[in-house]
Every structure is written in structure tokens, then in C-alpha cells.
């Protein structure tokens, strides 16, 4: 038989082979540091339920250098995630206004504005004003 198709297979490290794939994997990997932060929150939740001393212990724990370092990583990861996620949004849900599609760049900018507003709101909620007096 003259036909003998060569079946390619995906090498285990395929995701290292192209910048586009590395970018993708990095995006997916943002959830790892995120999980650490969620863990921290769960721990905090537990401590809060255990009374004041325990809560203070958690606050202290959160200021440990290694915890801070990992959470700093989580911050970077969440920002990177936001960067990728906001870019996808206009693709998944193109918004139309009066028969025209809203430019993607506007939608991305709008979302970053949202992040800023959320920050301010949360700051206010957590008592950011206390610091200012």
C-alpha cells in the first residue's frame, strides 16, 4: 500500500514549543497562586470564627514574608488573568449599540475602569477612611 499516513502525536511538552502555548499555559497557571490566596481567605474565615485572638493570629500570619511573597505572586497572577480575561470578553460577547459593534478597546478599557472602581469601593468598605483621619 502506497499510503502510510504518519500519525503525529502531541509531545508531553507541547506547551513549551510555541510562545502562544506558553502564554496560554501561563494564563491557566494563574490559578495556582490564586488557590493559595483562596486558602489564605479560608484560613482567615476559620480564624475569624474562632474568636479575636485567633483572628489576630491570622493577621500576623498574613504579614509573614513568605505568605506575603506568595500572595504578591497571586496579585500578579490575578492581574495577568484580568489582562487576558478582559481581552477575551469582547470576543465572547460583542456588544452592539445601534447596529454597530462596540470597539473591543473600549470594552477592555471599561473593564479596567471597573477594577479601579471596585478597588475604591472595597477600600471604602474596609474602612480606608479610618486611615485618612
Amino acid at each position, binding site marked *: 500500500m*502506497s*499510503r*502510510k*499516513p*504518519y*500519525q*503525529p502525536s*502531541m509531545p508531553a511538552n*507541547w*506547551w513549551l*514549543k*510555541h510562545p*502562544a*502555548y506558553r502564554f*496560554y499555559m501561563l494564563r*491557566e497557571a494563574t490559578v495556582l497562586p490564586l488557590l493559595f490566596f483562596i486558602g489564605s481567605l479560608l484560613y482567615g474565615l476559620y480564624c475569624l470564627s474562632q474568636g479575636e485572638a485567633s483572628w489576630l493570629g491570622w493577621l500576623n500570619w498574613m504579614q509573614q514574608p513568605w505568605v506575603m511573597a506568595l500572595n504578591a505572586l497571586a496579585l500578579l497572577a490575578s492581574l495577568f488573568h484580568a489582562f487576558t480575561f478582559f481581552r*477575551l470578553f469582547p*470576543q*465572547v*460577547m*460583542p456588544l452592539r449599540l445601534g*447596529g454597530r459593534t462596540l470597539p473591543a478597546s473600549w470594552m477592555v478599557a471599561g473593564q479596567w475602569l471597573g477594577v479601579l472602581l471596585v478597588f475604591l469601593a472595597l477600600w471604602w468598605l474596609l474602612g480606608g477612611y479610618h486611615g485618612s483621619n
Partner: protein
Amino acid sequence: MKQPDSIPSDKQHLSMTVQRYRPEQDDAPVWQSYQVPYDDSTSVLDALHWIKEQQDSSLAYRWSCRMAICGSCGVMVDGTPKLGCKTFLRDYPKGLKVAALANFPIEKDLIVDMNQFLHHLTALKPYLIGQPSSASEPNRQSPEQVKRYQQFANCINCGLCYSACPQFGLNPEFLGPAAIALAHRYNLDSRDQGKAERQPALNSKNGVWSCTFVGFCSTVCPKGVDPAAAINQGKIVSTMDGVIQWFSPKQLDTTPQEPTS
């Protein structure tokens, strides 16, 4: 590699490494390098022609229109899927590697088996389903209505997006970017009433749900089709479809699986 005599000395040349696979003698693809003359307008396809006509007439590759519209000439250039006729040597002054499209079985040299792709395309009923408003006159469709699906109608079936998509590489049953973009094109067409017939395949595991939004499919698409957008819009459609099915009492009895005939 020694420079063959037939290269005009006044032309620049570079090294083009081409993947060869001769099913009748090779067990796996091998690489072969050629010194190729080029100028500002030499495309990868032109270079392949040059090799075939001057160096090795057995080199096999597909092509037809040489103007980026027939979709024949997809190859991997330095690991990225490209149309050979729309990729220019001037952009690779240090040389380049040309291989068969990734994720497809290689038949010979740069020719891959496209049948799976065609099969997926067909599975999604990519044609208008429904009755025209009049037998003898065209349907009306406003430019805005055309615009809604036009982008997805521009697919030339080149398959580059399948080579770009690792999910297709991992799971060849995944219907894939172009096929889903085409289904989406018809679903968005104001003249079409076939969504219900296409949806079962799209709703399935190998439909929109195999996609993890790698997004590389849209990056490599030579026609700006943005299949990633089509698929991920399709995820919303599929989710809504599921919700509707869930809440509609009539549908509760019937299984969501449907024969596609």
C-alpha cells in the same frame, strides 16, 4: 550546503529547511535543507516551486490559487501555521523551517490528510436550512444583518486553525474552530432556521466544549475569521440552549441526544 549552480549569483539566497516524508521509504519525517534564491516578492510557495523545479521534483505540497483564497497551501513555518503563498521569505532573512500542518496525519512531505477536517465540517450541516420568503425573489437582508455573520463566512477551509489548536491535537474528535465558526455563521444568518439541527453536535463534548480558549486559532487565521470568538459565543448559545431545555416541560421527557441523520 553547497550552493547549486542554478542560483543566479545576483540574487540573495537563504536556507530553507523542509520536512520530508516519503511514505514508501520513510518511517518518520526527516528534514532537508535547500539554499533558495529570493527577492522581495518570493513567497514560501514560490520557494517550494523553485525547489521542485530545480532541485528535487519529488517534493510534494498542495497549492492552487497562489493568492490566499483557495486554502490549499497551509504549512508550518517555523512552527506557526501559515499560508505558503502569503508568507514571504523577506520576513525570514535568517532562514526558515517549513513543515506539514501540525495535528493532521502526514500523507507525504507537506501534504496532510484533510478528511477528518471535511468530516467535521459536514457534521455541522453548514448550509442554509429554511424556506425562502418567496420562491422567485431574494430574501431581504439588511447590511447589518449581513455584517453579523459575514466575518464567519470568510473561512477558506485552510485548516491552519486546526494546526494551531492544541485541543484538536489532543482530541481529533473535537469538531474544531473552522467547522464551528461555519455553523455559527449559519446560526447567525437571519435567513436560517437550522439552529436546532446544528445544536446537538455543538452542545456535545466534542462541540464547543472541547475548546479552552487557547485563542491561537484566531491569531493564525489568514482571513480574520476569529473562530475563537465563534466558539466562545457558541458556548453561551449552548448554555442557553441547555437552560431552555431544562425549563421547557415539553422537552423534559425527550432525551437531549438527537440523531443527526
